[in-house]
């Protein structure tokens, strides 16, 4: 429960996501029962809409990504020879926030009015007008999940670039880790927009802001942009870990290194990741956006399928050239590639604005994305499960059963989804249909396929559990893999048995190291037994529970239960933070020292600082999405209150100068401790704290004046402007307040003489944070006060 060890957290992720996968699957089966015959009334529209919505959300957010994160938790550190992730407690926090978000989302089924029901895309204003606290619970759960993923991305990114063991140069990093690296880069920049989108939607529901209910502008376009800016990268986020597994698996079963490894990496890094953020509007072809824009996004969409051609061709070439051994991981990899090809072809059809007019909103689309998301992604993940099961359990799975599982899954899958291509004239998201054409027959077939496919997964579950508890002993490196997670393991088990050959060297990025991969076999040899208790922390769990209760209270507001939840949740959060800080003060949580390994190209940057930069990098997108939303609203609304009519410009100017000055004093604080001067550090920190407090004080007084001047949400003249102002300025204020609280901690530590010339990373990193908050205000101020 309190573990922070990456393998334990990985297994927690793994089993939790399997649980959510089962929930999602049950919802899907219910839908297929309903659709199996025309005019059915097994589920009425009320339940069907919830099922379809929550199925999508749960599968995408609580199953597919997390199960990949689970495998990555377990294997990325092993593959790169790291002892653990860069920030183990943060990792545990990510897990617990993920679970807390999931609990919120699933609990929404049990409140009056039911769960979210407007589709996983949560199109506005339909979604925000759905009554009840169920959708709110789901949205807040999503926000937690997105926060969890953002923190996790920071953690993994820092780990992969900073904690590689000696000799693990970039050219020796295995494919799974590479692809997971790409995944987290996409996560790092995609998830902030979904946080922004769902925060805005939630405040609409809880606080009465009007971002998506306003009649003054067309808010649906705003939602579509925010959602799909996230949504398209998300489909790659789901896909890429599976591709990484497939690329990792293929060489072991073809007996030769992966073809065109470097071409694959370059294509993904330079084309897929950047372009994935540039194609989202193909989901908006029918929203009335200008034709030129449609053209641009259509071309970009076709362009992004080109690197996938490269990757697929490389896979196929590996298969042709090698001698293929059809073990279960290989079968699932092959299946994944085949299904991806089918899904990719249907996707290219959809990228044409003209054809999309026909297919849009039909079962053709459903078929398309299930071929890629279930076909390619889940088959790839299953390949990974079989592939790594011997490493996780020390036992060998039952090969015959695995092959049977593959055959039934593959057949079931196609019976399920292929008919949907022929249903291109049947609209999706309807709960029942008339008996026209061959709809009845095709739907019936699909439903049968659904049960075959789902039933096949029982074989997987049985095989995994049986292997775990009863399986025969597995050899230390059953696939003869050159990757570190196996070779170091083999070494640990029988030191003489290490005959691994070095990983296929690429050297594509100009850094070749002569050290053989095996030299890095450090991680496994020294398990975490020594000082194990130092790696337990109950704080991540406590914090997540607190946040969960608090948000549950917010979602069900108003009411006495809600109030209770808010109070209790708030107290738990404060307690957890307090204790966390105390743990740190007393050095109760220590991390193992990391051997100095490969860090190129980030050699000179300290670990925490790197983490901070990565985090801020993601924050840029978070604030940017909010400010972007503001600019959009501002540009779209015909009668925005003119500058100067609402806000007190002189006061705002003074306050801005106060904050700017605190930027200087923080800078001076850093300079002081760099010279080892603790007294001056304390002085400047104190000044910064005072200025920050003044800034917040003026803020509060401004808000009070605004309130008395009827600049409030409920005033129809100002509702949109007030929504934007209070949420964005409030978010900034929350960041300032968090900074102030942290400064108290820093000052306390300073006065106990903790920071020295050599050791003051926390001060430097806080300086980064504070400067960032300063920058944000440089944009917020003119946007609200002057323009």
């Amino acid at each position, binding site marked *: 429960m309190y573990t922070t060890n990456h393998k334990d957290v990985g297994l927690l992720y793994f089993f939790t996501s399997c649980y959510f996968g089962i929930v999602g699957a049950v919802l899907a089966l219910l839908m297929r029962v309903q659709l199996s015959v025309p005019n059915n009334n097994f589920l009425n529209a009320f339940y069907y809409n919830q099922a379809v919505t929550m199925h999508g959300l749960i599968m995408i957010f609580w199953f597919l990504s997390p199960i990949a994160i689970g495998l990555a938790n377990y294997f990325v550190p092993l593959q790169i020879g790291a002892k653990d992730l860069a920030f183990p407690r943060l990792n545990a926090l990510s897990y617990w926030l993920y679970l807390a978000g999931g609990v919120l989302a699933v609990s929404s089924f049990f409140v009056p009015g039911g769960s979210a029901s407007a589709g996983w895309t949560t199109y506005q204003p339909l979604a925000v007008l759905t009554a009840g606290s169920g959708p709110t619970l789901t949205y807040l759960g999503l926000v937690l999940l997105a926060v969890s993923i953002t923190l996790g991305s920071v953690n993994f990114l820092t780990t992969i670039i900073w904690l590689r063991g000696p000799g693990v140069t970039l050219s020796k990093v295995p494919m799974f880790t590479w692809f997971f690296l790409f995944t987290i880069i996409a996560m790092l*920049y995609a998830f902030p*927009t979904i946080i922004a989108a769902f925060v805005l939607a939630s405040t609409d529901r809880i606080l009465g802001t009007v971002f998506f209910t306003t009649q003054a502008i067309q808010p649906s*376009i*705003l939602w579509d*942009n925010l959602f799909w*800016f996230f949504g398209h990268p998300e489909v790659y986020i789901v896909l890429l870990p599976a591709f990484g597994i497939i690329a990792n698996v293929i060489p072991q079963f073809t007996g030769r290194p992966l073809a065109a490894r470097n071409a694959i990496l370059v294509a993904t890094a330079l084309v897929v990741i950047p372009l994935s*953020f*540039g194609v*989202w*509007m193909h989901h*908006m072809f029918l*929203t*009335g*956006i*200008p034709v030129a*824009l449609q053209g641009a996004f259509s071309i970009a969409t076709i362009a992004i399928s080109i690197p996938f051609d490269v990757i697929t061709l490389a896979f196929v070439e590996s298969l042709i050239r090698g001698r293929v051994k059809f073990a279960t991981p290989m079968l699932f990899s092959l299946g994944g590639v085949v299904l991806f090809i089918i899904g990719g072809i249907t996707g290219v059809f959809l990228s044409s604005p003209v054809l999309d007019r026909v297919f849009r909103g039909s079962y053709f689309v459903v078929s398309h994305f299930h071929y890629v998301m279930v076909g390619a992604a889940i088959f790839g993940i299953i390949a990974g499960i079989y592939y790594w099961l011997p490493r996780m359990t020390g036992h060998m799975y039952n090969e015959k059963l695995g092959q049977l599982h593959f055959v039934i899954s593959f057949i079931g899958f196609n019976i399920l989804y292929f008919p949907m291509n022929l249903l291109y004239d049947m609209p999706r998201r309807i709960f029942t249909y008339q008996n026209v054409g061959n709809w009845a027959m095709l739907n019936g077939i699909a439903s049968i396929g659904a049960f075959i496919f789902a039933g096949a997964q029982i074989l997987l579950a049985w095989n995994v559990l049986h292997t775990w508890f009863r399986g025969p002993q597995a050899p230390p490196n059953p696939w003869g893999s050159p990757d570190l997670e196996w070779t170091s393991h083999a070494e640990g088990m029988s030191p003489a048995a290490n005959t691994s050959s070095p990983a296929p060297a690429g050297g594509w990025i100009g850094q070749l190291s002569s050290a053989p991969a095996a030299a890095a076999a450090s991680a496994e040899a020294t398990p975490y037994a020594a000082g194990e208790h130092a790696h337990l922390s109950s704080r991540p769990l406590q914090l997540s529970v607190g946040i969960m209760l608090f948000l549950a209270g917010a979602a069900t507001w108003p009411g006495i239960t809600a109030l209770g939840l808010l109070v209790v949740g708030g107290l738990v959060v404060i307690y957890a933070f307090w204790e966390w800080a105390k743990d740190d003060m007393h050095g109760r949580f220590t991390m193992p020292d990391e051997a100095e390994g490969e860090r190129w*190209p*980030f*050699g*000179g*940057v300290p670990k925490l600082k790197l983490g901070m*930069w*990565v985090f*801020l*990098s*993601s924050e*840029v*997108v978070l604030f*940017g*999405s909010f400010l*972007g939303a503001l*600019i*959009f609203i501002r*540009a*779209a609304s015909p009668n925005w209150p003119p*500058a*100067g009519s609402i806000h007190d*410009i002189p006061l705002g*100017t003074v306050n*801005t*100068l106060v904050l*700017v000055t605190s*930027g*200087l004093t*923080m*800078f*001076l604080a850093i*300079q002081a401790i760099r010279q080892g001067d603790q007294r001056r550090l304390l002085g400047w920190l104190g000044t910064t704290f005072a200025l920050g407090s003044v800034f917040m004080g003026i803020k509060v007084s401004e808000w009070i004046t605004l309130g008395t001047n009827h600049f409030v949400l409920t005033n129809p003249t100002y509702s949109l402007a007030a929504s934007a102002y209070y949420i964005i300025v409030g978010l900034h204020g929350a960041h300032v307040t968090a900074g102030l609280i942290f400064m108290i901690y820093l000052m306390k530590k300073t006065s106990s003489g903790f920071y020295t010339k050599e050791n003051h990373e926390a001060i430097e990193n806080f*300086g*980064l944070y504070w*400067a*960032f908050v*300063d*920058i944000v205000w*440089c*944009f917020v*101020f*003119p946007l609200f006060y*002057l*323009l």
Partner: protein
Amino acid sequence: MRTLVGVGVWVYMVVAVLTEVLLYYQHLAYPVLVSVVSILATSQGVAIVLFYMQMKDEPASVKLFAIIPLMFLSALLVAELASLG
């Protein structure tokens, strides 16, 4: 020396903020005001990143972490505004 740079940045920040406010009171044409203020705000951000956050001393690989999100963001902003037609 570094202290001097820090104070210099602060002076620039103050001047920039005051310029923005003074320009507002000049009742310039709205597009002109918007462009000038955007440039000033951006220059403030750049100054803080380079000097207070000392990005100028970091390796190029760290600079990427500032540049990449800005690229994505500008795509989002441009498209959001363009989709207004």
